[in-house]
């Protein structure tokens, strides 16, 4: 792997201190060497200069011939992408689970998420959004956040550097594109991960897909979607790891206290970087299911045995463990293996979703944002786009995305779509999409 180095002196002021963050004189910057009197530090192979996500080089590199083989297979898939998705999706999925070759990751993510198509069908749109003035309310918050995303990554370390500039462009463009949504802080790390791989315009459309198709409502006002997923997650935990479930319940640790950052940032601030990339590879292909599974595997790992629970007897101790997952306890291959073998399907998530939506309505009243549906990864997106517009809501499992609608609009939509879509009214007034 090529190692790049970053010249500290070339960075803008304020950065050095933050990067060291460990000692006033920067002495604790580890393997720095002195070149021409300037401190130079090597990044890890992902571009991190330090911090908890810095890889110590313990990751095993894939053998060159294997990597080459994989690249060829992916290039072949790129050439006939639609066919692969519609006819040989299992193979695509398998290859995502094995890890996308880093040289092709950007293109793969854009194809998997279908953001490539959005990009191609909206020429000039990004520039147009950029030219708009934007709402100062959002711009102000975005500006405050620019230097607070992956401050240990070479791309985002320098104040006003190209990484931070691109981040601003992407996040601002989204607030112009969806003024009713605005900006939510968890979008910044997500956009930053994308920018580590692709140019701003591409990252923008990819972000759009994540916010609107994969995780609809996660970043919307009220954060209802994330709260619902917290409840779904907790309920799934009961099945997957009753011991961890009981422990969290005993200490009254709401899911929202530990899973918000995990889910909203798709683990980008939680896991060692090699794991983040593998999780994102699977996430783009298989959707939110992967996010649930990774969270469940983590809880299983940290709270899944008597020995482990003995170390965290208390709310604070437990929360601390969940907030600071020791990188050495998450091994890339083991994590992926466990995630792949966990029996948490889309259908199960959807079933749990309708239960939790009903509970929500019973205990808290109507949701502010009406549940529509989210798409579970590449195949789901692929099928969805091939369906004619008027059958937009298909007879699938219940789910929700969160698009604001007026009451009038809702009534109209239900009336129009109910007979066609196989959706039926529930007794309690809740909506359920019957399974096909």
């Amino acid at each position, binding site marked *: 792997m090529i190692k790049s180095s970053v010249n500290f002196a070339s960075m803008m002021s304020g950065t050095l*201190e933050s990067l060291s963050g460990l000692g006033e004189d920067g002495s604790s910057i580890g393997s720095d060497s002195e070149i021409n009197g300037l401190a130079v530090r090597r990044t890890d192979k992902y571009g991190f200069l330090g911090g908890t996500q810095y890889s110590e080089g313990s990751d095993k590199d894939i053998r060159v011939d294997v990597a080459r083989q994989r690249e060829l297979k992916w290039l072949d898939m790129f050439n006939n992408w639609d066919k692969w998705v519609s006819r040989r999706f299992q193979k695509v999925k398998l290859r995502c689970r094995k890890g996308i070759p880093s040289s092709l990751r950007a293109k793969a993510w854009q194809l998997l998420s279908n953001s490539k198509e959005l990009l191609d069908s909206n020429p000039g749109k990004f520039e147009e959004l950029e030219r708009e003035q934007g709402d100062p309310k959002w711009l102000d918050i975005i500006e405050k956040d620019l230097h607070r995303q992956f401050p240990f990554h070479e791309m985002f370390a320098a104040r006003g550097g190209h990484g931070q500039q691109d981040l601003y462009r992407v996040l601002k463009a989204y607030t112009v594109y969806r003024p009713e949504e605005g900006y939510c802080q968890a979008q910044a790390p997500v956009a930053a991960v994308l920018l580590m791989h692709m140019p701003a315009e591409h990252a923008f459309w990819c972000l759009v897909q994540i916010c609107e198709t994969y995780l609809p409502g996660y970043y919307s006002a009220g954060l209802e979607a994330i709260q619902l997923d917290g409840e779904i997650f907790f309920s799934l935990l009961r099945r997957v790891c009753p011991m961890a479930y009981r422990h969290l319940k005993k200490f009254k640790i709401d899911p929202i206290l530990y899973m*918000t950052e995990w889910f909203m940032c798709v683990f980008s601030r939680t896991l060692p970087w090699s794991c983040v990339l593998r999780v994102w590879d699977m996430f783009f292909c298989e959707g939110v299911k992967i996010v649930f599974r990774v969270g469940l595997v983590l809880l299983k790992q940290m709270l899944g045995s008597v020995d482990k629970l003995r170390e965290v007897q208390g709310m*604070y101790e437990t929360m601390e463990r969940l907030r600071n997952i020791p990188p050495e306890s998450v091994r890339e291959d083991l994590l992926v293996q466990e995630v792949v073998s966990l029996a948490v399907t889309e259908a199960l998530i959807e079933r749990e979703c309708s239960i939790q939506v009903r509970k929500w309505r019973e205990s808290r009243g109507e949701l502010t944002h009406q549940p529509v549906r989210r798409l579970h990864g590449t195949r789901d997106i692929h099928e969805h786009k091939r369906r004619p517009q008027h059958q937009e809501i298909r007879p699938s499992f219940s789910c929700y995305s969160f698009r604001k609608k007026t009451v009038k609009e809702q009534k109209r939509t239900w009336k129009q779509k109910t007979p066609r879509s196989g959706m039926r009214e529930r007794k309690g007034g809740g909506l359920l999409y019957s399974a096909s």
Partner: protein
Amino acid sequence: MGSDEAYNFVFKVVLIGESGVGKSNLLSRFTKNEFNHDSRTTIGVEFSTRTIQLKSLIIKAQIWDTAGLERYRAITSAYYRGAVGALLVYDITKHLTYESVERWLKELYDHADPHIVVMLVGNKTDLGSERSVPTEDAKDFAEKNGLLFLETSALESTNVETAFQNVLGEIHRKVSSKEVTRGSISAVSLSSPVPRAAGDPEEKKPCCRNL
């Protein structure tokens, strides 16, 4: 910071205020004596603890830090639960962050124990030349609303220690003078590594007998 560490009380204190006023740096300055110019944005909840001695008592301060962005307020009821102290932080160089103090105060009283000890904290005094909130204004506001008040600089480490010490001291004073109700005391979450059901006496810890 093991769970078997000896202490008399655990006090949960929350940090609130607008995004970017320096909550996370106040936390890291107090608990780790660290300051980061580019600390990551807080998403969801972060927290840290520090054990301090207050007269003859050992107090474990459990300090919770949350995202300041309005959007996150939807999920903060779990965050306020059991809190006995709060630092309501604004940035002395950004008047808007001061203007939102009242809204935060309402938010706090809506969710937290009514006896919660609150300190209004004007942070970033190191940027004195850019000050836009006069000390007297904030001080008056604090007095009128029964809040403690202090100006701090997490960067220069000015008054940070004092701010937390004062809040913790005031909480202790309230607890030991029984100003708080029995119900509120259980919210103090007495110093047991294994929390017990309300009313379950904890023999090992002397403090419980005082209550």
